[in-house]
């Protein structure tokens, strides 16, 4: 279909999520490049399971839970806040949230990126993992709640703690973590860390990684990159890949 580059606007008003998502799927299959969804309020699973790597969904309003769950390639922009479960088990694509999100961002996420201008809730990045060229990334402009990166096995989480309202993360940060890296702009007190992680300085390689993603963060949200990297970053990495290796008597 010759609809490349064309924009379609849908109103979500009064639609059940199943109707809305069916409509989104249909419009994408028709070949529209960009879909503007107005009046979104609580509809779940937007973008769930979709593979349309060069398309953009723009959401106005408050999308419901599991935004972009199992998503495989699509760009979603949320002009507002998102709820819980954003990017659940996401495999590819990008979600940009101009507001904040609820709990459980990027659960079991294996690929793609999530940018959040504001803060994120509890249990962000649990079970994040990486495989071969798939390295998922979550960048959070504000701070996060407890259990950040629990059981994290791969990927990158960057917490910027802009407009600092206190510590960048909650308690039990990185418990059970056995892979991946959490970057924190500024630092976080030891007592907030899980016993499987350590706080260390960053190196050149880390700076390269940070820059790669912060350039986009800066561009999306109109913040200067210089400002973002003006403060020192620390990183959290696991002590070892096998946190529970010696727990059992064979």
């Amino acid at each position, binding site marked *: 279909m010759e609809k490349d580059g064309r924009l379609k606007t849908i109103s979500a008003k009064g639609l059940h999520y199943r109707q809305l998502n069916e409509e989104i799927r249909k419009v994408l299959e028709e070949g529209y490049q960009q879909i503007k969804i107005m009046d979104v309020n609580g509809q779940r699973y937007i973008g769930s399971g979709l593979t349309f790597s060069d398309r953009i969904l723009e959401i106005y309003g408050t999308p419901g839970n599991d935004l972009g769950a199992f998503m495989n390639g699509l760009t979603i922009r949320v002009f507002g806040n998102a709820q819980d479960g954003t990017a659940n088990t996401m495999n590819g694509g990008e979600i940009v949230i101009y507001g904040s999100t609820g709990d459980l961002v990027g659960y079991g996420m294996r690929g793609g990126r999530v940018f959040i201008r504001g803060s994120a809730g509890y249990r962000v990045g649990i079970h994040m993992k990486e495989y071969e060229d*798939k390295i998922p990334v979550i960048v959070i402009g504000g701070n996060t709640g407890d259990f950040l990166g629990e059981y994290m096995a791969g990927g990158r989480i960057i917490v910027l703690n802009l407009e600092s309202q206190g510590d960048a993360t909650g308690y039990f940060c990185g418990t059970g973590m056995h892979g991946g890296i959490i970057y924190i702009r500024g630092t976080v007190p030891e007592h907030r860390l899980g016993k499987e992680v350590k706080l260390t300085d960053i190196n050149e390689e880390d700076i390269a990684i940070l820059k790669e993603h912060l350039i986009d963060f800066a561009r999306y949200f109109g913040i200067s990159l210089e400002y973002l990297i003006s403060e020192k970053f620390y990183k959290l990495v696991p002590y070892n890949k096998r946190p529970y*290796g010696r727990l059992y*008597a064979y």
Partner: protein
Amino acid sequence: MKTLYESDFIVIRDEIRCIRCKVCVRQCANEVHQYDEEDDRVIAENSRCVGCHRCVTLCPTKAITIIRNPLDFRENYQWTARAIKDIYKQAETGGILLTGMGNDKEYPIYWDRLLINASQVTNPSIDPLREPMELKTFIGRKPEKLEFDNYGRLITEIPPQLELEVPIMFSAMSFGSISINACESLARASVEVGTFWNTGEGGLHKKLYPYKERAIVQCASGRFGVDVEYLNAGSAIEIKIGQGAKPGIGGHLPGEKVGEEVSQTRMIPIGTDAISPAPHHDIYSIEDLRQLIYALKEAVNYKKPVGVKIAAVHNVSAIASGIARAGADYIAIDGFRGGTGAAPTRIRDNVGIPVELALASVDTRLREEGLRNQISLIVGGSIRNSADVIKAIALGADAVYIATSALVALGCHLCQNCHTGKCNWGIATQDPNLVKRLNPDIGAKRASNLLKAWSHEIKEMLGGMGINALESLRGNRLMLRGVGLNEKELEILGIKHAGEGI
């Protein structure tokens, strides 16, 4: 530290029969047998023997016998040898005791307290060899009723169903916990017999894609190998909440078992632990479960049934009712005798309830709430033979899941050492030297033979009951009678005692 743990088994070799062919030496992954060149003898290190019988089976002259170590502790009803030895082990390692397979303690096996009816005179038995006998079973959500238009055409949209030719499926065993050849054996048997196998939470190995039409793909808390392609590959999706062998405990595939193939399938780097904790951290409530059920349905555009597997626990009927209301297409209930690749021994032996009671109470509860027809019910965890299957279906199951039985068909000797990864039968291992011991051609044949044999037996028993379609047994508890059960047990099971008429 000097161990106080004396060996569990003793290897007895008949020196006259032993021809020093060294088959046992080559076959024992635990390195029990060693050839002594100097004396031209094969000797055994008993402490390493797990009693798997690989050497016994392959010894061409049948020169080997394995016996339980007759060494007794002083007789003590409370302090059994097992209790004492467990303490030695923990005192020596400081670790959690791990074991493989399901609960082996002396809890009542309700299957064995149930007896099946047969017709005599007043209605005829059916001869299944010559007359039609239907075992076809549909797993999936059913509308409460059908609607037709004026031309007799079906209007009601039927949700996706799994169509089983036999009411027995292979339950979840991940590639990682079992070998690729074991997976392939079961997958191929499923294709051959017309039933389904379950990927477990380990992802779908590319070698198994040819059998994906007969696969149920599992999604557990670790989300290993889960992406859209995977979800769309199988014929159904199963959310794993719990497992009968270790309710409330997650899965943990140690890094040493994550080799290249497991790594690709689970989509995690080689050598990293694959940890699936008990909770999905996106499910803390029944409404969260509903959220995941519908997230999965959305991800596959409502084309596959989404089921939920739970362990049989005390409040199972209420949980099942919740799952039915949360929109699941089927509920799989796993009893506490269900197997596992590795479970903390104490959990395995003490947590959960027998699936017979769980099944009966779930079926009853769902009927009381008028939900039973809408959702399918699968039970697993302890099904050993076709009579167990018949009893499960009469108690109300739509189909059963088998795993331990399937592995036994493949050669498992229940040595309960799956967690060591040194399965001499090529089943619960990733060591390529051991994996190849299970020839998938043979495995597929053995597994399909088992299902075919059970099907024949089920047909015989159905015939005896005067039933020629399995659905007429489903929930037909009048076909069961209890023996040696107390009133409460009979009440929960919803059956009469043997000797009571109809």
